[in-house]
Every structure is written in C-alpha cells, then in structure tokens.
C-alpha cells in the first residue's frame, strides 16, 4: 500500500512551479515553504527548492529545474522527526523515514539499470530548511497532516486476517475431528441405533489388528528365531 517516494515532473499552471493539487478529491495545500534542501538517502543535498505540504502529501520541487521534484504521500511516511544533533546530520532538519513498496522490488531491480536514482528504494528523506528556527513549525504541520491520514485499509485487512481466519481454523479443526471419529465422538450417532453395531465392532477389531502389532510380533518371532 505504501507508494514510497516518486518523481514529480508536472507543475500546475504553465509550469509556474506549483505542484498539481487534486482539489477534486479534497486535497488542499497546507503550507508552502521556500528555501528547503532535500537529502534522499545518503545522497548529497539538492537545492534550492520549495517544500509544499498538502493534507495528503509532501512535495519538494526544485526552484531551478522545472522538471525536477519529488513527492511522497503521508501514508508512506512512517516516521518524521526533528533532527538537531550534528552527529545524526550536520544541518538541523526534518528527518523522515519512508515506507517503500515491497512487492515491486524485483521488477524495479531489473528495470532501472539506468543511473537515475531508484526512488522507490529510498527509505530516508531529510528536509533542510535554510532557517532552522522553522523546524518546530514544520514538525507540527507534519504531525497534523500525518494524523489526517490514517491507513484506510488496515482495519479491513486485519479483520480478514485475524477474525475470520482464526474462526475458520477453529471450525475446520472441529470438523476434522468430527469426520475422523464419528463413532467414538458421537455416541448418539445413528450408526449405533440402526443396528449397525457390527460396523463399530469391526472398526474396533481393525484397531486391534493394527499392522504395527503384526510387525511387532514378526519382529519378536524373528528375534526368537535369531536366538535359536
């Protein structure tokens, strides 16, 4: 379900520089913050750029290259944090961890041999505002928007995985037991009432004349013979 990071080459208007907002589906822009560098994974920072935050996703759009930009849905942002420790990263920044699409891994591997960066594999993104005093405000907006985007399918999925499968398992277990041991587990079973007592008896005998016992006798005899 996580879509991960993606490339944005489209701009709204006549390429003025704004991202394309899906207002028909209730998307609205929450914040525009110029002067932000972006750091994808361990790559060098890219700048200058502008950060756009809507109630659904985050964009970083290059100020110089109109065809360059990145976007990520809040649904794919597992974690975001204010990073001020120079050991973690030299510049104070918003650190995000991005959930990447898991299923397409192999496809992506074979397809993208080009030197273009494999965005779907990027799991970390740092956004470095030129003014570090804005970090807390940015963090607050991130929090606010993340809360607007709870996982839509989680409940459905989980219900399916847990409730139904658990119940089914139990039911199947019971059915299995019933079908394997109808005579012994079900004393009121019509099999006895219908005068088919012999059937139960023969089953009983069958069990006594189990092959394992025969094997054991044979072994015993064999042993005796061997000793003789």
């Amino acid at each position, binding site marked *: 379900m996580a879509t991960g990071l993606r490339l944005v080459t489209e701009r709204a208007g006549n390429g003025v520089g704004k991202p394309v907002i899906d207002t028909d589906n209730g998307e609205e822009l929450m914040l525009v913050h110029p002067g932000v560098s972006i750091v994808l994974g*361990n790559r060098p920072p890219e700048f200058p750029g502008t950060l756009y935050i809507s109630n659904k996703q985050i964009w970083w759009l290059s100020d110089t290259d109109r065809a360059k930009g990145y976007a990520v849905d809040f649904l794919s942002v*597992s974690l975001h*944090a204010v*990073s*001020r*420790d120079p050991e*973690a990263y030299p510049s104070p920044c918003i650190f995000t961890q991005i959930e990447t699409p898991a299923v397409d891994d192999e496809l992506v591997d074979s397809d993208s041999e080009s030197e273009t960066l494999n965005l779907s594999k990027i799991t970390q993104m740092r956004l470095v505002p030129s003014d570090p005093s804005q970090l807390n405000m940015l963090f607050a907006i991130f929090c606010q928007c993340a809360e607007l985007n709870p996982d839509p399918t989680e*409940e459905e999925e989980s*219900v399916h*995985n847990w409730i139904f499968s658990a119940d089914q398992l139990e039911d199947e277990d019971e059915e299995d037991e019933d079908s394997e041991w109808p005579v012994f587990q079900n004393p009121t079973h019509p099999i006895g009432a219908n005068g088919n007592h012999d059937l139960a008896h023969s089953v009983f005998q069958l069990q006594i004349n189990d092959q394992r016992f025969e094997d054991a006798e044979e072994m015993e005899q064999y042993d005796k013979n061997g000793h003789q």
Partner: protein
Amino acid sequence: MVLLSSHASATFVFGFGFRFEINLMFVLLGFVQLFFSYFKDLVGREVTVELKNDLAIRGTLHSVDQYLNIKLENTRVVDQDKYPHMLSVRNCFIRGSVVRYVQLPPEGVDVELLHDATRREARGG
C-alpha cells in the same frame, strides 16, 4: 516489559515471559480506545517503540492519538551500531500503523487494571 503491537493483534508481555495476545476482534470492539486511554496515562515515561522495519526507538512518550500514532521526545535509536547515521532527535512522530511493539516500563503497568479493562471490553461493556 509490556509490548503492544498495533497491527492485527496486541501482544502484552508482562514481567519477562508471561504473554497473552488479543486479536483484532476485540480491538475493533474498542481496544484501540482502551490502548489510547492506557497510553495517555503513560505520557512522560520512557518507552521503546519497535517498528515493523526492525528499527527500535527509545524516548519519552509525549503523546498518543486515536490511531496510536506516537510522539516521542529525546529519542535515540536503540541499536546504534546497526543504524549509525540514524537519528538522535528531540521530537519524533511515529505512524501508528508501522509500530510493531511498544515496550513499556514494568512499573508503568497495572496488570489488574488492564485485566479488568480488557475483560470489560471483551464483554462489550
């Protein structure tokens, strides 16, 4: 230690060894609400949040919301060797759906209270 998994089942580990699981049926009946209230009482305590990508982050629980999104303060990554460049950050927001476990301090766990609350929830009252 107590662990809470946010996804399908909630796993509690009391002390070191005693463990029971609650499946999502109960969660749907109101356990999210229960955990939500429960976590709110733990605000200010040190917890370790283990993510589904194996990253574990320790910090002071700042807040939790109805989706079990978790905000931590003064965080650090537990396994520094494995994630050398990872964050040592002041504030951290973790998406509820990526949380695997939350490890709580033993003294922050009132087993009796949880027992009662979970029973009440299971009865639907």
